[in-house]
């Protein structure tokens, strides 16, 4: 398993990573192998998107600039997974 250092994670995900705006879904268990990020590791922009996520879970953020990748788990007021 390979975990990346945060500064590497600051690079934008490949444009093909997300076909639409990323969304978050609450989870109770962390899937094996998932990369886990704390809310404090995210950029201001991504924090804002997560804190104001629509009821659908959709993040109002440009997919090409997000620091998150599909499958990442974020520790916020609950654990959420990016998809």
């Amino acid at each position, binding site marked *: *398993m*390979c*975990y*990346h*250092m*945060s*500064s*590497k994670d600051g690079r934008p995900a490949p444009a093909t990573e997300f076909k639409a705006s990323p969304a978050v879904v609450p989870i109770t268990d*962390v899937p*094996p192998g*998932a*990369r*886990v990020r*704390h*809310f*404090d*590791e995210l950029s*201001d*922009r991504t*924090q*804002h998107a997560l*804190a*104001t996520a629509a009821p659908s879970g959709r993040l109002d953020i440009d997919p090409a600039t997000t620091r998150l990748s599909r499958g990442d*788990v974020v*520790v*916020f*007021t609950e*654990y959420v997974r990016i998809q």
Partner: protein
Amino acid sequence: MREIAIHINPEYKPRVMSQSYVIVGDGIAGASAAETLREEEPDADITIITDEGEPLYNRILIKEFAKGKLPAAPISIHEESWYDDRDIDLVLNTLVTNIDPEGHTVTAHDGTEYEYDKLLLAIGGTPTQLPVENSDAEGIHHFWTFQDARDIKEHIEQADNSVVIGAGLLGIDLAAITAAQDVEGKYLMRGKAWWRYALSQDGAEIIHNALRERNVEPVFDSGVDHFEMDDDGVVTAAIDPNGDRYPADFVGIAIGLNFNTEIVEGTDIECDTGIHVDEYMRTNHDDIFAAGDITEFHDVILGERAQNGAWGSAKEQGTIAAKNMVDYGSEEFRWVSSYSITHFDFPFLSFGHPTLGDDSVEAKYSDTEWRRLAIKDGKIVGGVLIGDLSPQTKYKKLMREQVDVSGQLDTLVKQDFQLEDLEGAAAEQ
């Protein structure tokens, strides 16, 4: 006499022999510096020396591990192969005990000497011990390293009742760990509110209620006079200064950090509670830099020295330090830090320096929504948001750009505040 004309090519840059960089500390500041140095100088010799027994891990996730919510694997950030792949020498379990700035060497506890051209001190801090009777009893924990988290998790899973001491951002992690592990607890605080230097009673009460809902009872005007222990040296209770007794087989203490300045005390490297650095992370020695918790840095936004222990701040300081070790003056540290608490149903975020300032403004919007901004010389220098984090980017922008918000404090805490609501020069930002 013949005249000799010397032509100087302004584009000429002298070739420099490969530099030798030594980094003391493999936390996020040290590791981000090493990564940046390798990117900036592919041929440099880079050595990281750490007294810990494992490579970089995610310090802000270890509380989730101790709560029993997160397995150990995602906590690790670097395998040892990460260093090998980048030709970085990682020296574990090694405490640097001496620095010779003139000789450009550091010496480890085992006598090994390491030479450097440029040195980075990212040596962080150590939890402050509570100077009371029996504070070294078995079952009393401090919370700083991954190993601390492992010990806490192993113990709290067997515990029946707990006491937590330290009404700040680290103490509440310990309280949340006891709550998550379903261990009844008392949270002893010296004042009348949690984090009383940054929150008013209104704001703190939201946190108090959230703790009570999780079976952790805040106890105010309290603290610890001494601990009781059994014949085996295991803690059994905390006795507060009022004489009240709180039975506990688990005790967590988080009353602050002592910054690891011992190794510079025999040198003329300037330090106070931390090591003094300028906005480029350089000490008063040209070849010695510092980054992370250990620094008292010149905060260009605040206009005075400051310390900050947030993860993002430490990471940025490491990166900035590395850039200036390679090319001094190339980039200054200009940063608005933030720190969040994710233990409750509602979010909590502090930013900047919420305990400083000469004025403040606050507003409560509901039982779980509250804001306070700290103001200094008419400008935002920090704040705390509970419940609704959506204004944080606006407040941070105003702070970063040092916008004068004098006379408009009430506007700032309108529930749906927008930057356009500001008048005058502030509105032009």
